[in-house]
């Protein structure tokens, strides 16, 4: 009996380890430094140095280990003044602060294995769904840190979660990806006083003329019962890359309810379960690439005027869809246009947002000198409120592993708009990145 058990175990290990390859260890990383100056008042917004050490171990058993850490030191401390409470972050995923200026974080730590011809990735990781750039429709698996609103690259602002991802083939045409995220971590929004603390009614609790008597946050904490999980099916049909997605998850933004009390208003934040169904498609036609993405989220809560609902929120479904066209007809040039619409089924109730909201993005990117120099312009425009963000970036690869960068990010529009609220936060940024 023991012999049989041993054989089965050996077989499982063999299957788990396959494919076997030579063992290797790679240690590397990126050191980068950036300095951003607010153009409105010439104050420094950030002066940070980031070290991203990376370790990759390819074991001889077919199991690989990857670890990426991040140590960030910001001389200005304006983006997250002091030490953030990290209330929305699970204890497993929190950053460690070494004083107000320095933080350390285990960005990713995962093992990869290939059991029975499938792919398994376990550990702290980023899981990215969807096809849009700059704005998100299906990319909701990992929460985001809005330390710099959306200026920080998603790669950097996305908060990795402890998760399991299993990819498998269902048949010749369809593949599946099953994810389980027991990590109860949600969007991290800078507190009031931070450079990019939200003030827009869409993003912040609507101010009340009554005093706020207290604030409580209720956060799920049951490892499995409150875990998010999702399934993505992907296929290629007549040249189209298709995905069908389902995610059962807690919305990453807390629902802020207001409870009227005699002495004032008590504000209570809680995370609500929701289902997101969606899909994405992309294909190339000559010089054009078409990308489309759609997601429907069942229980979305948005802020309502105090007089309407006693707890200040309206529940409804939200359908978000996006279509983008990339044009690569000109050498070394990418022109990408996206249109994203979000429809909120608010059942006629007044809310802090419109029933239909439309954003458009335009990206023009051109490289020069054998891709040594990259000039990138991105415009994100909220069609409804007329505010937006213009980013202009020039990156120069002085060496293969040494990049110099200069960037300007300009917000414009109404102070009540998602982008316009940061009109005074326009900045100019210089920096470099060095890979080792």
């Amino acid at each position, binding site marked *: 009996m023991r012999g049989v058990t041993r054989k089965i175990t050996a077989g499982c290990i063999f299957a788990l380890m396959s494919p076997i390859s*030579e063992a290797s260890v790679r240690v590397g990383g990126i050191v980068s430094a950036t300095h951003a100056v607010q153009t409105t008042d010439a104050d420094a917004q950030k002066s940070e140095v980031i070290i991203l050490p990376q370790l990759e171990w*390819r074991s001889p058993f077919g199991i690989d280990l990857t670890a990426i850490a991040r140590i960030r030191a910001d001389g200005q401390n304006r983006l997250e003044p002091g030490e953030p409470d990290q209330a929305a972050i699970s204890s497993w995923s929190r950053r460690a602060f070494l004083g107000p200026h320095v933080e350390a974080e285990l960005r990713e730590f995962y093992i990869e294995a290939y059991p029975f011809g499938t792919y398994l990735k376990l550990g702290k990781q980023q899981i990215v769904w969807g*096809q849009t750039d700059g704005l998100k429709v299906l990319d909701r698996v990992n929460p985001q840190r809005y330390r710099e609103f959306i200026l920080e690259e998603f790669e950097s602002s996305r908060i990795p979660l402890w998760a399991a991802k299993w990819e498998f083939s269902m048949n010749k045409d369809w*593949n599946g990806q099953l994810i389980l995220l027991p990590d109860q971590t949600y969007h991290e929004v800078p507190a009031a006083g931070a450079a990019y603390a939200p003030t827009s009614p869409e993003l912040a609790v609507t101010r009340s003329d009554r005093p706020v008597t207290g604030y409580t946050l209720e956060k799920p904490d049951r490892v499995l019962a409150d875990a998010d999980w999702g399934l993505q099916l992907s296929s290629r049909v007549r*040249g189209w890359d298709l995905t069908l997605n389902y995610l059962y998850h807690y919305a990453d933004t807390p629902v802020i309810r207001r409870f009227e009390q005699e002495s004032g208003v008590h504000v209570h934040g809680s995370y609500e379960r929701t289902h997101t169904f969606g899909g994405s498609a992309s294909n*190339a036609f000559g010089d054009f690439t078409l990308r489309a993405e759609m997601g429907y989220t069942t229980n979305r809560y948005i802020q309502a005027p105090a007089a309407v609902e006693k707890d200040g929120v309206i529940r409804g479904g939200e359908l978000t869809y996006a279509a983008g066209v990339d044009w690569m007809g000109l050498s070394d040039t990418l022109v990408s246009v996206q249109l994203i619409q979000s429809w909120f089924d608010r059942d006629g109730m007044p809310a802090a947002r419109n029933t239909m909201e439309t954003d458009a993005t335009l990206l023009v990117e051109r490289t020069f000198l*054998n*891709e040594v120099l990259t000039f990138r312009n991105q415009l994100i425009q909220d069609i409804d409120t007329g505010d937006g963000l213009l980013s202009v970036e020039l990156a120069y690869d002085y060496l*293969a592993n040494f990049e110099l960068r200069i960037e300007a990010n300009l917000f414009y529009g109404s102070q009540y708009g998602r982008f316009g609220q940061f009109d005074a936060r326009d900045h100019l940024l210089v920096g470099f990145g060095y890979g080792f």
Partner: protein
Amino acid sequence: MNTTEHTETDTTAIHFFHRLLRWRWLVIIGCFLAIGLVGRYLPTMTKDTTPEAFVPKGSPALAFRDHVESVFGLKDPMVIAITSDGERGIYTPGALQLVHRLTQELATVEGVDPDAITSLATEKDIRGTSDGMLVEPFWESPPQSTAETQAIRNRVEQFPLMLGTLVSRDGSATLLIAETLPDADDEQVYHALLALTEQVKTQGLREGWLAEDIGLYVAGQGAVSGYLSAYIAADASRLNPIAALIITIVLLLAFRTLAGTLLPNLIVLGTVAVGLGSMAAAGIPMYVITNSLPVILIGIAVCDSIHIFTQYYEELANNPGLSGREAVARAMSAMWRPVTLTTLTTVAGFIGLSLAASLPPMQSYGIFAAIGILAAWAWTLLLLPALLSLFRPRVKPVPETQKAKHGIATTIMTASGGIVARYPSQILMATALLLVIAVGGATRIEFNDQRIHSFQEQEPLRVADGIINQRFDGTYYLDVAIETPQPEDLFLPENLRKIEALQNWMEQREGIYNTTSIVDYIKQMHQALHEGDPAYYAIPDDPALIAQYFLLYSASGDPDDFEEEIDYDYRQAHVRGQLREDNFQNVEPIVLSLKQYLDEEFNSPAIRGDSTGAIDLSYSWLKPLAGNTAAGMALALMLVLVSSTLFFRSLVLGLIATLPVAFSVLMVFAIMGYTGIWIGIGTSMFAAIAIGLGVDFAIHTIDRLRTLIRDQHLEYGEAVGILFPSTGRALLFNLLALALGFGVLMTSKVPPLQDFGLLVAIAVLTSFVISMTSMTALIGVLRPRALFAKREKSTTKLSTPLAQQGFARIGLLKLLATLSLLAFAIPSVADDSNAGLQIMQAVYERPEGITQRANLTLELTDRRGRKRVQQTIVLRKYFGKDKRQVLYYLEPTNVRDTAFLTYDYADPATEDEQWLYLPALRKTRRISASDRGDYFLGTDLTYEEMKRQNKISLEDWRFTHVGESEVDGIKTVTVEGTPITKQVADELGYGRARWYIDPATNTIRRAENFDIQGNTLKTALFNNIREIDGIWTVHEITVDNHKTGHQTHLQITDVAYEIPLDDDSFDERTLRRGVRQ
């Protein structure tokens, strides 16, 4: 009409043709239905070969002629001439017996009016007797003795009206004139008369009453009109199969496939069915000149088909894996523009002809040729691709012995290109000299026509016509219709004297040999009544006497005997002048002076005369023909100028495009002038037609030069070097097709059509030669802004293309020898460019193994020497014929895990697919595969080159084997490639490329790429080529970009083939996982 080289695929077009092919059965059925609908009228086609057909309906001259003929019962008669060169001439018992018998037999011939037969056996002698006047036949029964015949001779010779008209003045010939019934088939009657004469003559000879020297001839205007119809029909039924046969042979030689031979013939049938069917449907008869219409339509229709087929085969030759449908769609999308453009210019030529022509046959010719050409265009663009996709003919492999050889046509054109590029000024001087000679010849040209010349010289009818007109006073009539105000005014002596004076005046004109009128009869009767005294051969002074003469005549003769000379109430009469030929140049002064005489001398309130008759009618429509020719030519030239100016959006280029055809027309005029060919009915249209056909050469040439010089920024010399073996070669075949098509007309039995075919063939030949040489040289000298505007800064001298260097080796003698060989050997269009293709195919088919894994170190060095080094790993696997390849970046960290995946489908109809995984986005971005000419992630290799790995896509290039050379001490063959379309060139980023192939390993050792403008762009060296697992593998690639000074050095290591690679490794979703080394 079109080139095969200068092509431009446009997406809309290819989509259109894909859609068309998807519904091909519907298209085929629709096309055949349309052909059937129009073609069903063909059996109703009528013929009108009469001279009247040339006169516009409602013409006053025709109306008057018809009126005169109806009044006097005149009709173009059949004429039988009996000749005898014996001492007594026809005054022998045998000959007169023959006259008698034939007259009797004639009355029994179906279609002959028995009451309208005139001969010595029917005519009556007018003699005076003691009782008055005796009107009696020359004989009651045929004379049996010489004495009797002599008596008849005496009586005839005393009857001047008979001389020169019914009996030759020397007595050597007599005529039997027979008119046909209104509904008679003149052609049948003519043949019946031929049979009758033969039968009677044979009988006479057998029975011994007829002498051997008796000649019998059948002619006359009725016979000419009647027989010309059948003659032309027979000619057409002979010409069309010859044309079809020649074209079939050309097609067979060119394509060597059944479909390549049959399908163009189907298009030809459809074209002719519509061209002629629409003519029949419109009720337009087939005229003498429209006989050439089918042949011309055949030539033009097959031309379009040839170009489509050539392109189709080239598509297949360049890419043997191409599906039939895709090859058809590509060929069509490449060729629809030139086919359409040349159709429009040719249609413009014919419309010009039609607009300028005042004569119905020419108007019809222009209109229905244009309809036919448009039908050819429609069938070529609709029916041909649909049928082609059904048959899917394939290119036959080229035998090894023929590989790497240029075809004769290419050799000739390459050499010619060298001459033009090298000696433009000398060519222009030679052209100027030729121009002077041509002008000299053109001034000698003569406008003329003669209807009998529609028959060959040896044709019996023409022979008969010659003999009759030689012995008699002529069978061509110039009439004057006389009209007086009151009945019996023609009894008035003063009126009769005026007619007599008119006759005298006419007989003094050179060319008019005799005149006849009622006055002659009156004088004959007057003399007869005065005992035959010649002194009384005059007009009596008393009108009453004249009236009595007619009364007397009717007493013994038939009252209807004068119906052809005077009307029943003696108010109208007509004078008939006889001419021996209707040569326009001779006739014109006679008609003009007659009209002048009538106006100035004859016409008065008491009597009026108007010229009429066949000669007058011919004059009336031939006269404007000269003007029509000039106007048609001018209009056609103008339309060509306008259309080419619009097409090129440049007046200067429009003028340059018009020059070759103007010159070719001048050259043909010169040839006509020097050789004495008239501008006549048959040849008057050649100018407009030749302009419409010939301008194609100029348009294709300029269009190609425009692409090469303006768009691709090639030097003039280099552009010419490319022009000749590509577009020029295609135009050469175009010329052959046209020349052979029109050459068929040279075998016609209708001489004007022979001239027409010859002249148009010369015209298109001249157009071709002048377009390729003088016009190209003129462009080189003038450097029009429309072509050179953007090049002026950099263009300082004419470069010496490779093709020119080749010419020095070929030499003039070899060129001449090759030219003469060309006549006997038409090389295959499809095979000729295969040498380069075969070499590149061998490279393409070089084994690569099913799977491959390799490490790639990319060393990128900028012009200042700064290096960037990147490590990558490449995995590749074949899935059937499809290739999938993935490349992962390993170092440096900044780009680590960037991955590039390609699906390269063997079926060119399926667009390749590419994905790029960008770790910074953590997203796999689908990227356009049409960006294949972009540089791959900062290297000097394009996406395409990264994908192909020392191989070249066969479907994107046209390859030419250009020679041999050494690369790093290794003997290589050099192949030059040009992208098949401008779109492909734009996609690849190259206007041209040259590869140096090691034939031992079928690897590319060196590659040179030129940008769209033709400038050297980069050079790639492939070194350290070693065999790994039996597969030749490149281990080192160095690419120097001469424009940027950037260099990419690829070091390929750890290459392994046939290793197990999971299919999932090439899945888009696995890109984000990175590679496990």
